[in-house]
């Protein structure tokens, strides 16, 4: 195993990345408005982001049932998020805020079917 070769390759990647970071900071994109800034709490997320960061890892992805495109009632969705059900954990207002949950439930209720999703 060539440890020198590995070290050089890692160094090249690191140098390229350092350059990238420097460029992004210099051009003012180091604090992109879209995401979380250093030292700040996580800003309110869009329903699409909450879905992709939490729900979508199970629902429509091998584990949970498909919930988009079914016109599920908003109250039902809110109930499940806060209570959990069976294998589904409960999610608290500290992790999905009441504001986020309201928007999420509306979004899921009205979302069309995503052909890429597959349920269980």
């Amino acid at each position, binding site marked *: *195993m060539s440890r020198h070769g590995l070290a050089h390759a890692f160094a090249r990647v690191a140098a390229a*990345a350092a350059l990238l970071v420097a460029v992004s900071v210099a051009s003012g994109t180091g604090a*992109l408005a879209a995401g979380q800034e250093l030292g700040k709490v996580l800003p309110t997320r869009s329903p699409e982001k909450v879905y992709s960061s939490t729900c979508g890892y199970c629902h429509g992805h091998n*584990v949970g049932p498909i919930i988009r495109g079914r016109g599920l009632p908003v109250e*039902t969705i809110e*109930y499940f998020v806060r209570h959990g*059900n069976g*294998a589904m954990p409960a999610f*608290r207002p*500290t992790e999905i805020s009441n504001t986020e949950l309201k928007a999420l439930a509306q979004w899921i209720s009205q979302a069309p079917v995503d052909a890429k999703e597959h349920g269980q």
Partner: protein
Amino acid sequence: MSGISRRDILAAGAVGSSLVAARAFATPLDGTRMLPKRMSRSTFATAVKELQAIVGSDWVFADEESTVSYRKSFIPDLRGEHVPSGAVAPESVEEVQAILKVANKYRLPLWPISTGHNMGYGMATPASSGQMILDLKRMNRILDFDAELGTILVEPGVTYQQIHDYIAEHKLPYWIDVPTVGPIVSMVGNTLERGVGYTPYGDHFFMQCGMEVVLADGSVLKTGMGSVQNSTTWQAFKWGYGPYLDGIFTQSNFGVVTKLGMWLMPQPPVYKPFVVRYPNAEDVAKATDTIRPFRMNNLIPNGVLIMGALYQLAMFKRRTDIFNGTGAIPEELIKAEARRNGLGMWNTYFALYGTDATIAATEPILRAAFEASGGEVLTEAEMTGNPWFEHHKTLMRGGMTLEEIGLVRWWGSNGGAVAFAPVAPAKGAETAGQSALAREIMNKHGFDYAPAYAVGGRELHHIIFLMFDKGDDDSSARAETCINEMIVRFGEKGWCAYRSSVSTMDLVARQYGETNRTVNARIKHALDPNHILAPGKQGIA
């Protein structure tokens, strides 16, 4: 929980679900067993008012409707022994300090959580009923990211998903190392529980560097180099000067960790995942003995998983997909189902990280050894699209997945699972012995043995996921008996758990000996004389 099924709710529709919710909420949170021991209702109400003054009324949860999310867990709790009195959620260190002052004043026990998704071990629920959850999820700031050193400083509420997003957004050349449910759990919480992952940075506590702890008296300790004036080394050098303190704040109740530093793995130029399939149940010994030398000399650099067929199948299938009879599923059926899905009875996942040249130099050595042991070595060339291979390919590069939650619904929609995780030396005779004993006990109680071995270096964690039906009291009772019997009988052979559910903390702590417990008790009493922080955590009152 109300016992109302998912199907009932879905069928009920909007109006129906509101009615169902109202019915569930009609059960009052006024059972005295849920209040802190020896605390009157009026004292509790006064404490709640003072907590509301600190964090705002929106962030104190002290009635049935608002605490329901904190009570959900997958483990058996037939006697209501893990029911919190409420929850309080601070947003800053100053608020944590003020809460501790109130807790000391009223002797209000607090159970700190980071994100509260400690899946197989009780989620957010406390070791004993009546404790108030100290929910740190709102403290979710990424405080520092050093792009040269690859270090990060985070608060407890930061999930692996947040860090993943931050890295992606800023195109930083680092990977994170995740437990199996990374998106919704905390880097701080998992590290403090001494959880493991599957990249070369898989031993999370080993990769931790510096922490900030609020002690019960409100004082703030920064460990390692963190208290040095003008320190620039807090996340670079672990050990500091004098006794190394970080360890006593892991799996403990000696303080509230409010900041934690971690090292991140530089993104490798090339990543190549492998699986080695073994056809028979007894092959686990050969797999173990083949892996050990490569973990010791680091030719295999990552946290290796030896996954049993049933653990794998349970991720994406339900029990009735395979078997409708009573008792444990016969081994031949498991073997046949595994084969149909491209799995062996044991499936060893490892990966190589480096350059094409370094991987090309290493791969033949590993292939030869695994093939000589009877394993079938496979890569993306053969396994792309296989959902289990794809899952582990994601994990071994620190990717986001929640697929292992699927195990919890093995017995049906009610869910139910509790983990038992004894450690052992990484020797074939040890894994063969542990698997035989676990299978015997679990099958006797009517459960299926769903194992995984996580091989660190010289040791391995045996992760046994006991799946049961939480909607069935008989199944829950058998699960409780079964887990207790496993803890006791494994303990008799010197095999003890590295971590345990809130329901078995005292039982496991006893196995580590009286002197150990006494030392922990003395430290506890010195740092938290009113015992307000998580009484019962890891068996420490």
